[in-house]
């Protein structure tokens, strides 16, 4: 039975809730608006909220002169590539642990989690040197493998928690009906596993897209993703607020939208299944 909530109470919390939401969201809103201003108006005091001359000039400049597309393509390649690679390694692994667990499975999972606990900075030096030796600096393959390994524990964990929820009885039923192992996998298990795999992909793409330790350290131009592109605006001579805002809006839009859809899965993945 739903409890009755007085309209006054709802009105009160609605005002407070929207005010708090607005404050937290304001920097993003402000960036979005600034992207449509001229550079001059971007700096104006008092600031202009909605009544300025809206222009798409910054977006045109970014798209045409600044090689934005090169960096965006790299972001897609890196986020997509590292996710795909991680899946290829993680799906069988999580599968094996969920469906034929051994006495050591739990320890194995905890050990995998512990590899994620190693701070990136602890291995920056050797990774940097290995990249120099193997000529991997500023290559796509280098950063893809690096991000794949960095996120692999989270991917395995998340897949494991999903696979574990697939009822095992269904397998026996299929076996009784004479299904072979391959038929089991293709017709019975895969359809049940797809939602979990989709959520995992979502989380990993978000993490890889926004990763800004390795991408800033081992990529420079050829394989540099959007994190590097935005960082180039930090140079004092590059202080163009309107262009920075337009570029930032473009860089975050796909991920913010993906993230909004995948909130629940995010909680599960980021807490290693400890909070659902």
């Amino acid at each position, binding site marked *: 039975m739903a409890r009755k909530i007085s309209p006054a109470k709802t009105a009160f*919390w609605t005002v407070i*809730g*929207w005010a708090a939401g607005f404050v*937290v969201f304001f*920097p*993003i809103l402000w960036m979005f608006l600034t992207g449509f201003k001229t550079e001059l108006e*971007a*700096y104006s*005091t008092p*600031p202009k909220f909605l009544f300025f001359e809206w222009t798409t000039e910054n977006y045109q400049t970014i798209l045409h002169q600044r090689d934005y597309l090169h960096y965006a393509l790299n972001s897609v390649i890196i986020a997509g590539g590292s996710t795909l690679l991680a899946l290829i390694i993680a799906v*069988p*692994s999580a*599968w094996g*642990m969920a469906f*034929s*667990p*051994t006495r050591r499975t739990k320890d194995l999972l*905890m050990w995998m*989690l*512990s590899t*994620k*606990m*190693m701070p*990136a*900075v*602890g*291995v*920056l*030096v*050797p990774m*940097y*040197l*290995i990249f120099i030796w193997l000529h991997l600096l500023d290559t796509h393959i280098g950063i893809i493998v690096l991000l794949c*390994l960095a996120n*692999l524990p989270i991917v395995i964990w998340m897949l494991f928690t999903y696979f574990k929820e697939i009822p095992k009885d269904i397998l026996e039923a299929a076996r009784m009906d004479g299904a072979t192992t391959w038929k089991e996998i293709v017709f019975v298990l895969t359809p049940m596993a797809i939602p979990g795999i989709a959520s995992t992909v979502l989380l990993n793409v978000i993490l890889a897209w*926004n990763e*800004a*330790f390795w991408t*800033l*350290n081992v990529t420079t131009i050829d394989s540099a993703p*959007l*994190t590097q592109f*935005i*960082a180039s605006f*930090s140079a004092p001579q590059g202080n163009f*607020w309107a262009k*920075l805002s337009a570029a930032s809006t473009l*860089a*975050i839009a796909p991920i913010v939208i*993906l*993230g*909004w859809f995948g*909130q629940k899965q995010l*909680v599960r993945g*980021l*807490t290693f*299944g*400890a*909070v*659902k």
Partner: protein
Amino acid sequence: MATKRSQSIGRIAVAPSVVLLFVWMIVPLALTLYFSTQRYNLLYPERSGFIGFTNYTYFVTNPAFATAIVNTLVLVGSVLVITVLLGTLLALLLDQPIFGQGIVRLMVIAPFFIMPTVSALVWKNLLMNPVSGFFAWIAKSFGFAPIDWFAQAPMLSVILIVAWEWTPFATLIIFTALQSLDLEQKEAAEMDGAGAFSFFSWIVLPHLARPITVVIMIETIFLLSVFAEIRVTTDGGPGQATTNLAYLVFQQAILNSNVGAASAGGIVAVILANIVAFFLVRVVGKNLDA
């Protein structure tokens, strides 16, 4: 029941990931340990050799190191306090009857999806600039002198940016936990005449203890390596004011090419993280019925 055959298939399926993670963890860590005992500067490759703990003594007696440790602890500690407090408040707020709750929730969690370089530069320029920034305008409208954030309070500025990025994470997780507090419990407490305060302190808070612990530990792991926000705003300065351990190692390794000293710093960071990880693995492990 798992058969012998399915078990061996399972082992084969698990093997590649185990090998890869093992290599990924052991090889770099062993190299870091090895380099940390070597005189090794990329600029002077001919001067190399075993020097024992000299890098550690160099790194640890370097005044920059003490500053970096203090800065790291201040940054991690402050961000944790702010995000957990604000996150709990926001989660409790979202749990109230709000018209358009879904949209408010989206606005609150949005900062978490913003890439660090964007957050840092938008805050530094659009909001915190002492002349044309939004905060300066607010200060001026109330008759105060605008603060030159990155000159007067560089560490506070970095803390604010990082806290803004991580508050949504805390909110999202605590909110998820709040929602699993079932309605019947709430109703039972109301029937028993529990006031709002005692309900909160006897039922809600204990229920939140676990998610808050998880938030603290996971954030600590990530906050120990805060890098991009510092890189694009202060470059560790002014002076050493915002140099944390991660940034110091980066400076030693990539700017000074001093592999030995940077490795020693890396090992120190690993030890710090391990102390946290030790507790995290326990908390998560308790919840795992593999």
